[in-house]
């Protein structure tokens, strides 16, 4: 009994999580991809993606969540997202001005339009998603140390 308590929540929660966590992730990707057409964008989509990983950790326990995205992986994704954003800005810099919209802007209201904005959204989504997951891990795992010391 105590072994089951250690590893996450009850069977009902685990079943529902198995069904919905992929859909939550997909919804986050949808909000990031349509960031230039409807409200949302990189930050809101990144938060939803981070929440899908947090959902997995809450329902199943930390080993299962670390199999999907380890601690080192979260750190690497975070830095990678930031470097990607800075590279997009610097590419505009060498072409003319900082943050210049140098990719061709297609016809408006289509998915591929408005230049560099979708790429910026993806970079921000990586950074915010990985960053929020890393913050959650740091705060929650630190709590275990306090209880052991007491």
């Amino acid at each position, binding site marked *: 009994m105590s072994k089951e308590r250690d590893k996450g929540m009850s069977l009902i929660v685990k079943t529902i999580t198995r069904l919905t966590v992929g859909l939550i992730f997909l919804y986050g990707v949808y909000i990031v991809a349509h960031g230039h*057409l409807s*409200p949302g964008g990189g930050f809101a989509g990144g938060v939803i993606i981070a929440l899908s990983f947090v959902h997995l950790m809450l329902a199943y326990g930390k080993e299962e969540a670390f199999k999907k995205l380890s601690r080192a992986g979260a750190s690497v994704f975070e830095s990678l997202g930031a470097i990607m954003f800075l590279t997009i800005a610097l590419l505009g810099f060498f072409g003319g001005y900082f943050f210049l919209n140098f990719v061709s802007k297609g016809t408006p209201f289509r998915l591929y339009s408005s230049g560099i904005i979708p790429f910026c959204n993806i970079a921000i989504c990586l950074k915010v998603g990985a960053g929020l997951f890393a*913050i959650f891990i740091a*705060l929650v795992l*630190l709590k275990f140390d306090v209880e052991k*010391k007491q």
Partner: protein
Amino acid sequence: MIPYLPYWLCLILFCEGLYCVLRKRNLIKIIVGIMIMDYAVNLFFVLLAYKINGRAPILSPDTTIMNMVDPLPHALVLTSIVIGLATTALFIAIAIRIYQKYGTFDITKIKELKG
């Protein structure tokens, strides 16, 4: 009806957050006070953008740019919310470490620096 009532209520919310920061003794309540002040300032920005009988400022193929609220403060609020998130995360991390070292959240007992 008092004129500009939403703005007055927003500033009263800001003052309530400031009261929390000044008078509460628990560390976590001080952090909640700062969060309330954050919300009040963001709400103030959004209220600035409102035009009477305006609609949401989203452009789609079958609408014209007429009668929309001002979209610039919405972008500012988005940035401000991200900054608030980062600050709150840092505060909570420092508060957890303080609990680990001092054993209490009460600010009247955390008084090692003097002079």
